[in-house]
């Protein structure tokens, strides 16, 4: 692996050589699918030895978390170096060795808000793929109002006692630990009495139940907390200041979800997809008109993702404008799937018919504009924080 301070072109050469030497050929240039993702964790089973080998080699070099400090198993890279790494992996068709909510969400939160002991304890198992995390934000009845946290953590002197319920906890039934928002002060204003707590899912009193969606099975769960004892050292940041961490992570999440629209149907045009579904559909002026409009908007949105990414990478950040990406990307994606369903006609109406899981995917897109902040909340954010329109 290249030394940290090195010329970009040399770095690129060394990285690409290393990938070619170390990424097993069986993994390269395979289409992405649900079972090609490595989530890690205590109960993880690899699909095959090559998958395990790739993770072991990559984490040894810090490539599961390229920009995290090396002391926690990160790669210690600069922003530009990470960009080169991702470009070379994409070019060579090497899959990500590990994906996890720990890498995406908890790690950045701990690096920004955690204490030294917490970083030392929790970051290495994340980079090594040993502990799988899930996120406990939403609660039944709270909906878009994430600050409406009812799950309470009572200070019992040497520990917190947690009681309550979370919903929409992705993969809670498969995760080892959970990071969650809990209410530690019931008298304070809504946003002020929230804390950010880490819990081992094996702690007595925690149970989970999968949620079935209108589109079928889902990774989402309900998670119940019944007199769960949590050591006080598991509180991240200051007590009652958890909303700051939550906000930090929400902006982060929004960008990820909005970006989904870009890659979903690969680089192919909508017209090509529709032709595959029904080669006469584009003769219908209604479908042709909508396909052209959706194609125009999809390409322009992809350019917008590029522009915002460049802006963020140039150090400008994205901030509240990320609400726009979330809003536009998810609404566009819903339109695209409505169009595909129309184009495919009655063949698309079966759960597993001539077009496979198209119907389930279509129904699943309806959640895009709800999860991670509804479209309405995104529009509120744009109106108030970007356009600075007055409050009522």
């Amino acid at each position: 692996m290249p030394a940290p301070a090195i010329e970009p072109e040399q770095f690129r050469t060394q990285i690409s050589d290393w990938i070619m030497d170390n990424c097993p050929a069986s993994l390269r240039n395979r289409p992405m699918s649900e079972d090609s993702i490595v989530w890690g964790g205590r109960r993880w089973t690899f699909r095959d030895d090559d998958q395990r080998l790739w993770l072991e080699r990559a984490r040894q070099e810090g490539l599961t978390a390229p920009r995290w400090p090396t002391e926690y198993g990160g790669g210690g890279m600069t922003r530009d170096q990470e960009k080169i790494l991702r470009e070379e992996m994409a070019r060579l068709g090497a899959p990500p060795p590990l994906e996890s909510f720990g890498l995406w969400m908890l790690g950045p939160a701990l690096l920004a808000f955690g204490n030294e002991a917490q970083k030392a304890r929790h970051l290495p198992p994340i980079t090594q793929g040993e502990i799988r995390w899930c996120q406990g934000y939403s609660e039944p009845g709270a909906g878009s109002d994430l600050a409406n946290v009812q799950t309470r953590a009572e200070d019992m002197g040497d520990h917190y006692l947690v009681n309550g319920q979370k919903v929409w906890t992705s993969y809670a039934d498969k995760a080892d630990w959970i990071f969650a928002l809990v209410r530690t002060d019931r008298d304070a204003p809504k946003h002020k009495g929230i804390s950010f707590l880490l819990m081992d899912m094996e702690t007595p009193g925690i149970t989970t139940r999968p949620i079935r969606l209108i589109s079928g099975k889902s990774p989402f769960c309900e998670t119940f907390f019944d007199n769960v004892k949590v050591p006080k050292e598991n509180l991240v940041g200051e007590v009652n200041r958890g909303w700051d961490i939550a906000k930090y992570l929400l902006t982060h999440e929004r960008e990820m979800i909005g970006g989904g629209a870009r890659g979903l149907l690969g680089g192919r045009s909508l017209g090509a997809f529709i032709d595959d579904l029904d080669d006469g559909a584009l003769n219908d002026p209604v479908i042709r008109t909508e396909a052209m409009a959706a194609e125009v908007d999809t390409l322009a949105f992809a350019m917008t993702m590029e522009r915002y990414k460049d802006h963020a990478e140039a150090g400008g950040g994205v901030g509240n404008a990320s609400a726009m990406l979330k809003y536009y990307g998810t609404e566009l994606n819903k339109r695209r799937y409505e169009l595909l369903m129309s184009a495919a006609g009655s063949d698309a109406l079966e759960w597993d018919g001539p077009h496979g899981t198209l119907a389930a995917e279509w129904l699943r897109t309806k959640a895009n504009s709800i999860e991670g902040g509804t479209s309405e909340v995104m529009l509120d954010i744009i109106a108030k924080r970007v356009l600075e329109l007055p409050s009522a």
Partner: protein
Amino acid sequence: MTSLLDTEEEIMLRDAARGFLDGAAPVSALRANRDAGRPCDPGLWREMAQMGWAGVLVPEDAGGAEMGHRAAGILSHEMGVTLAASPFLSTAVIAATALRHAAGARARDALAGIAAGETTYALALDEGARHLPEHTALRAERAGNGYRLSGSKTFVADGTTATRVLVLARTGGVPGEAEGLSLFDIDAERAGLSRARLDTVDARDHARLDFDGVEAIGDDLLGEVDDAMRLLRPALDAGQAALAAELAGLANGVSAMTLGYLKERRQFDRAIGSFQALQHRAAHLWAEIEVTTSAIANAGRVLDETPDDATLAVSLAKARAAKTADLAVREGIQMHGGIGMTDDHDAGFFMKRARVGAEWLGDYGYHAARVASARGF
């Protein structure tokens, strides 16, 4: 023409239907059927038949109630409100209309069977992913005194549960031509006919039918050979209008559920229905439903009073209803937020049925084009 307002009789029919369906076929019944793998509830149809719904279009001399297409639309609308699954559309509307246009004692007997709730029908029409009757390729070849039917049909509503099948077959010409088509009325259990249920998102009975040399005797031919369209055209008009009414009912059903949620559900310390952005969208949706309601009433009126001019009125109703139902379910799901995305909630059932109803018997583009053509462009 008569007024587009419901008459007092019609209001009573609507209220009675709503009362019955709320009790006998609420959305929870659809859920129970789905979870049990049942496409519909046979007992429900018996009750509907007893109330005269099966014979809504059957002449009185064949034991029917002969209430007409507006009444059929009212019943269909109310079934849409609660997503009630029944053979009503295929049997009481489509097959009954086709049979009424076929003369003779045989058709009269068949109509009597419908009115009595004993016979149910499926219409085996389309062979591909779109509604294109004239693209029929399924062949009916002369064999002795009768015919032999070979080919396949798909997306046949009520295809596995119906006791009889109306099948559109080609006796002449080539696929793409409206001429050379004949309509057969055969027993669903006849040898050589295999029926496979499709696992559609609306959890209703849609099937693929394969005809492997199925025999049809002369009496099975409905109307004249090569002249299916004379029966099928009015039958499709009636079916499309009733399906439009169902979709309008569906839009009303999901919209009532959504308005209720907007009034009850609190977020950010207020009822979400007090947010003006949602209010305006709900008001717009209501306006669209009102406008569609007029088109539905008009389609029923035209079918009852000047059925030969029905194309414009029927396609207008179906085009409007498909779009309105689509808007209603999209707004319904979005306004319900996460809870509406869960299978435990009923909102998803409306979205799934709306999609199936939009495609069946011609999608928005098909009907909009027919409106344009009827209007000279």
